[in-house]
């Protein structure tokens, strides 16, 4: 047990922080959040690829670094601090799915390209009426001789507008519910694919993607056509990994909001003294710091367990629920403490507030994860009545 970063992890953290601080100036973040053309920065993407961070958790044989998932999490935390454009996250999520499900050939082809920064990717999972439960997916795939035909509509697909390919999770037409999921590698410019961009709270690029008789061959089926019992588990695992990674991003953002707010109240003077010397202000920040510390620990725990290949169901539910509440509440309290100064767009605070809300709403809200957690704790902890200790 050692709840501190190793020396290597600290070094990685420092390197990443320095890099992002240099590269992601407020102007760039601002442009990324507002641009109607692209949220993606080609120049930054190239530099990130050069640092090797797109392939941190990708095996060396596929041009990755072969590091651990936790190492990748360290990068995510720093990315969250710096508000990195979201193409990084969606591409990594896709790489996790490919890692779980892909054939050797697909890994060689796609993971290598991702690691080298030659491919932007994303995952299409949720649908208008089925956010989490694939049983209710209307996106289906039908086999037609040696071809597959894909029909349906996915929503909230991040960065589909700039992606080189989209991993689409669909139901097999003859399959029922969760038993028959299949993932396709689809290019946005394939015949029958149409994109409609969504206008979102966080000004991030998300799209509704419609598949109208999109014809695909077997090389487009992630993992080939040999479905195994592991297929659904693999979807699930990649999703959990992506959730934990997003939590890392969120704690990075939350810690940054805390740091910025501490700086602000230390400098802002009223009644002739810094407002940070008032206990009312200090106590809000002490609470914020405690939440951020707790969120960080809960997230590290979930991330570490997954990185070690261990079960983390309960820990992940705790991490996402607590971190969602922490990040969002930190931004809302920051607005209270910064007052008008933080409301002005110039301060940039709202960029974190937007991202906090966007991340809270994706990969399961507070209630979603508490419900998961309640399903895990209710039947356990059975202590026999005669063991009851009276104080």
């Amino acid at each position: 047990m050692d709840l501190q970063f190793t020396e290597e992890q600290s070094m990685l953290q420092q390197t990443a922080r320095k890099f992002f601080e240099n590269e992601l100036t407020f102007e760039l973040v601002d442009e990324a959040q507002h641009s109607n053309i692209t949220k993606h920065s080609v120049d930054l993407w190239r530099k990130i690829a050069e640092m090797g961070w797109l392939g941190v958790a990708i095996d060396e044989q596929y041009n990755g670094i072969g590091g651990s998932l936790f190492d990748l999490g360290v990068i995510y935390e720093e990315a969250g601090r710096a508000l990195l454009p979201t193409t990084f996250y969606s591409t990594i999520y896709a790489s996790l799915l490919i890692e779980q499900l892909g054939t050797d050939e697909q890994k060689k082809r796609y993971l290598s390209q991702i690691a080298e920064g030659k491919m932007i990717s994303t995952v299409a999972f949720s649908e208008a009426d089925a956010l989490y439960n694939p049983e209710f997916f209307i996106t289906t795939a039908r086999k037609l001789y040696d071809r597959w035909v894909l029909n349906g509509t996915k929503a909230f697909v991040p960065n589909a507008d700039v992606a080189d390919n989209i991993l689409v999770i669909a139901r097999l037409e003859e399959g029922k519910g969760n038993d028959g999921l299949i993932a396709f590698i689809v290019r946005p410019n394939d015949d029958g694919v149409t994109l409609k961009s969504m206008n979102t709270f966080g000004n991030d690029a998300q799209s509704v993607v419609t598949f109208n008789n999109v014809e695909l061959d077997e090389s487009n089926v992630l993992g080939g056509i040999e479905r195994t019992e592991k297929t659904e588990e693999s979807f699930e695992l990649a999703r959990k990994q992506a959730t934990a990674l997003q939590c890392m991003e969120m704690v990075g953002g939350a810690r940054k909001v805390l740091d910025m707010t501490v700086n602000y109240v230390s400098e802002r003077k009223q009644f002739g003294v810094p407002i940070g010397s008032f206990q009312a202000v200090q106590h809000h920040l002490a609470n914020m710091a405690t939440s951020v510390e707790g969120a960080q620990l809960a997230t590290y725990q979930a991330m570490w367990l997954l990185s070690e290949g261990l079960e983390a169901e309960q820990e992940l539910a705790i991490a996402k629920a607590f971190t969602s509440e922490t990040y969002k509440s930190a931004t809302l309290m920051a607005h209270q403490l910064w007052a008008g100064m933080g409301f002005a767009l110039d301060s940039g605070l709202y960029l974190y507030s937007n991202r906090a809300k966007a991340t809270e709403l994706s990969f399961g809200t507070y209630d979603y994860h508490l419900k998961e957690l309640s399903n895990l704790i209710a039947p356990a902890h059975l202590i026999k009545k005669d063991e009851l200790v009276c104080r």
Partner: protein
Amino acid sequence: MNFRLTKEQLAWQQEVRSFIKENVTPELLAEVKETDDKQAGPLEKVFLQKVIEKGWHGLNWPKEYGGLNKGAVDKLIFMEEMRYHHAPDQEIKFMEYAANAIINKGTEENKKVWLPKFINGEIIPSMSYSEPSAGTDLASLHTRAELDGDEWVINGHKIWNTRGHRATHQWVAARTDPNAPKHKGISVFVVPMNTPGISVVEIKTWDHRVNEVFYEDVRVPKSSLIGDVNSGWNIITSALNTERFTIGIGSHIWRVFDELVNYCNRTTRDGELLVQRPEVRLRLAQLKMEIEIARLLTYRAASMIDAGKDVSAIASMSKVYTTELSTKVVDYGMQIFELYGQLNDYEADPLYKMIAQYYRAVPLRRFGGGTNEVMRNIVAQRGLMLPRK
């Protein structure tokens, strides 16, 4: 980063559990409950002696003082298990607060004179800090200690003293230089309870017994002074850091939570098993989440102690989080019981009275060892470096 206990830590946890299973008997627990406001009973004395024989009294102490030199994580494991099973730990705790401060800030002579008596159980200390007009503003205390020849003469009035009726010694903060700034004129003394001039008067509270302790021309030898003259504030803050870290260990309340989950799994009201009520499930899940956060904060603090880092901020965070969450757990527990939450006897279900007792006991933790407002000040000023003025 590593969230798993090491093989050695797991073995240690197992060792503590076996010891508790063998020695924390229903008879012992019944006796402890009976004697809280009196002297320790025979079973408790035997229990404490067994802990001492194991060497666990000096768990973290360096080997040179007879300790086992185990880390703070080991200490945490020990305390978590003890509390989870409601084993009596007050005497062990107080000994630890004082002894740690002596090890960290005491003189070589202090260590030679006092540590052997602490570790063998000869001394059971109790804290004489607060005074009627010096609570949160502890440094404004009025109790005086003056040197008269080879002896210190102590006069003053202490309050909110826990366990003074059981202790062998008081750990007394007294003013030794009335002309120095308030933090710089305080010293700490170890004073035997049988010294003439000490009297202990009970204060009845909503929960357990506390005391006023009066000092009238109490004379102690020079060797009773801990650290240097007027360096007492430093010693007190060191002891308080240990105390706050320890208060953050809330496993006796996390046990209550486990009992509640069990209760909800076996209790049907108005035709419905409690655990099937969606609102109950969500509340339990929320508490479960927060308990995990509280535990992680204690483990983080322990890791930092083992790495030799300043833990004043994290220990304060942990103290605030655990004590406020403890209130929530027992408060919600009583609500789960609904009308039964009022029952003040053990007949229907021992859980009712137990949780009601905790409901009265846990608010104390929100101000004992430093109010949670002061804890937040520490997090803000020492952790976040916010300006004082």
